[in-house]
């Protein structure tokens, strides 16, 4: 039954190809039934694989690359890690496809949208099912391409087109590191299959392992929007909101965490690389959470929140707890995509993303409000909701490894609760600001949200089974903590989350206006001026350098060479045309001279 694995990627691949080729000819109705159904079939195939296939099953399709001693097979791997990812990706993608039917209903680019969305689903599933690095890289680039296409989906808007470009270029920097890492790994091990790499990680010297791990991690910081390459994700909010939910919250941006988990033995070989992963993760988590405190665009808050939560996942993997990081990835996929879908529902109703123009939506949009509240409780780590289990798992594991990482993580948890409830209070409570009438979204949008809300609650309850399942990988272990210590840690993080919610309530419901901290506020609202800093450090020198090269190298040397060759031909032609006198006798003379020359050479035996 390994063929099921092929079906998982075949359905969305067919959809992408079909809608790209014939999308214009098909009716909206057909597309809105076919595109989600294909992803639904893919989800059913994943479920069937989950129920029937043994861990480690591999569907071998064909040899893909064979050059020298590099042999790469096109195959699909089913193991605990890919199983979790495949189920999450296809399940969330299915719900978001349905939601998109409602959200994008009026858009003229309907067919194009679903072609891209199916292509994305295919690429993402290829990424998680690949058994070797080159195939993973294909999926990696595929999702990057779809991200670019969908961020710039409304390309007639200049900000959207620029945001797409920014995402693509920033990801190029990360992918450059990722590719170098693959090359380096190949020169040492001569094999790029994960199973081989992970079982031979001991062959790498610690220094080599550090180099490989950090290069690959550079790719992860690009794709998963971590410091220093996180800057593209907030701009990516220019895309349609379901895209933000699927690509820029639930699936693609967590690919970096998946990759590090996949190659964990290589990282574990170098303690330094793991520390880098953990520290980059936790600092990003804190840093992005502080920016999220002061954003007024509802999607920007969620974007920074995503960056922050992925930081948690990296911190979890970095302290050696792969299953904790993966568990947070799993729960985050539900509640964060739900947050985006609910925000999309609000945007759909009001036509604005500015929270200062919302307020008081609780009555008009009850379903949206309740699912939003559930997701916010989940991300804030309130006991009983999914985020509580995964976040506390990470914090407990961090505590066992490094108190500093744990401390930053707990403070971040408090900030998270504050900005999430700031969002809720500004959007759903208080008096309406600047809108007359709002309406609840149609069932095609609310039903997927309700399903996601269900999972946002219950996804955390399976944590014990989840860890046990991932132990099948052979390199997943959790540190044991004394139960009393664990209870204290939980108490600390939950009380900080409650304090965050309380402060948000006091500021935005009691006082009904934000606090002003002067310079701190301005620095946060200016997002620490990182974009401006990168502009001065990289963008300006690059454009200025390009200008200089254009003037001297392009205009001087390249244009000179092109025009020069033309000039040489023309001058040569002029010179030769002197022979054309128009006198037949001259031509005859040249001919005779040629004959005499040829005869002389023939007689002397040269020719």
């Amino acid at each position, binding site marked *: 039954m390994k063929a099921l694995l092929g079906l998982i990627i075949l359905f969305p691949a067919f959809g992408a190809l079909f809608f790209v080729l014939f999308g214009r000819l098909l009716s909206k109705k057909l597309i809105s039934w076919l595109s989600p159904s294909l992803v639904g079939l893919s989800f059913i195939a994943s479920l069937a694989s989950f129920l029937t296939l043994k861990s480690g099953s591999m569907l071998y399709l064909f040899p893909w690359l064979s050059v020298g001693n590099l042999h790469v097979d096109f195959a699909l791997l089913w193991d605990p890690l890919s199983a979790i990812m495949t189920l999450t990706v296809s399940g969330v993608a299915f719900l978001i496809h349905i939601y998109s039917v409602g959200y994008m209903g009026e858009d003229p680019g309907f067919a194009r949208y679903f072609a891209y969305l199916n292509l994305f689903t295919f690429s993402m599933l290829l990424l998680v099912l690949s058994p070797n690095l080159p195939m993973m890289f294909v999926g990696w680039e595929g999702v990057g391409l779809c991200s670019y296409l969908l961020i710039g989906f409304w390309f007639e808007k200049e900000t959207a087109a620029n945001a797409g470009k920014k995402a693509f270029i920033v990801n190029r920097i990360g992918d450059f590191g990722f590719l170098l890492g693959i090359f380096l790994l190949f020169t040492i091990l001569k094999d790029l299959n994960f199973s081989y790499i992970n079982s031979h990680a001991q062959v790498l010297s610690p220094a080599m392992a550090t180099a490989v791990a950090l290069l690959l991690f550079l790719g992860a910081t690009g794709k998963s929007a971590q410091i220093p390459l996180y800057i593209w994700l907030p701009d990516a909010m220019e895309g349609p909101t379901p895209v933000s939910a699927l690509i820029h919250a639930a699936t693609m941006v967590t690919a970096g965490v998946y990759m590090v988990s996949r190659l964990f033995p290589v990282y574990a070989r170098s303690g330094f690389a793991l520390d880098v992963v953990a520290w980059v993760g936790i600092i990003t988590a804190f840093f992005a959470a502080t920016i999220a405190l002061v954003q007024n665009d509802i999607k920007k808050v969620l974007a920074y929140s995503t960056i922050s939560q992925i930081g948690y996942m990296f911190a979890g993997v970095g302290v050696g707890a792969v299953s904790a990081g993966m568990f947070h990835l799993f729960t985050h996929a539900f509640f964060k995509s739900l947050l985006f879908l609910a925000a999309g529902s609000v945007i759909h109703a009001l036509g604005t993303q500015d929270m200062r123009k919302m307020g008081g939506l609780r009555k008009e949009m009850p379903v949206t409000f309740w699912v939003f509240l559930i997701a916010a409780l989940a991300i804030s780590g309130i006991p009983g909701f999914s985020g509580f289990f995964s976040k506390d798992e990470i914090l407990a594991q961090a505590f066992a490894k490094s108190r500093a990482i744990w401390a930053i993580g707990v403070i971040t948890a408090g900030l998270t609760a504050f900005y999430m409830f700031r969002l809720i209070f500004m959007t759903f409570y208080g008096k309406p600001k600047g809108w007359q009438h709002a309406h609840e979204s149609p069932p095609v949008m609310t039903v997927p949200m309700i399903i996601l809300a269900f999972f946002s609650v219950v996804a955390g309850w399976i944590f014990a089974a989840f860890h046990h399942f991932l132990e099948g990988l052979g390199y997943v272990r959790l540190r044991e903590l004394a139960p009393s210590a664990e209870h204290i840690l939980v108490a600390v993080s939950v009380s900080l989350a409650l304090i965050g919610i309380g402060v948000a309530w006091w500021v935005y419901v009691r006082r009904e206006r934000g606090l002003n901290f002067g310079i701190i506020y301005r620095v946060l609202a200016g997002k620490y001026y990182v974009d401006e800093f990168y502009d001065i450090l990289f963008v300006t020198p690059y454009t200025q350098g390009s200008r200089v090269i254009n003037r001297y190298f392009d205009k001087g040397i390249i244009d000179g060479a092109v025009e020069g060759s033309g000039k040489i031909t023309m001058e040569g032609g002029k010179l030769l045309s002197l022979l054309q006198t*128009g*006198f*037949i006798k001259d031509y005859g003379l040249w001919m005779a001279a040629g004959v005499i020359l040829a005869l002389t050479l023939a007689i002397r035996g040269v020719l």
Partner: protein
Amino acid sequence: MNGYGILILASLLFAGGVAGFFLKKDLLTMLLSAEVSLSGAILALLYFALSNPTEVRAGIIAVLTVAAAEVAVALASVAVVVRVKGRATEKTVSEMKG
């Protein structure tokens, strides 16, 4: 008949043709001279055909074809030049531009 006699005759014809081509100014005479030198070449070839029949005969036919084609094209050109310019000398042709 002495074989060398034929070769000497051929050389004379050829040399005469070439000399006529370079010395005469009238296009028609130059054309005839070229034909004469071609005849010289054909005569030489005929002599060699005695020892190596097949290939050389093919060569002779080729030369004859070229000569015939030349006459056809060149004679037609000369006729046009005469009609336009009144007479056909080397000078009238060199004044043409195209």
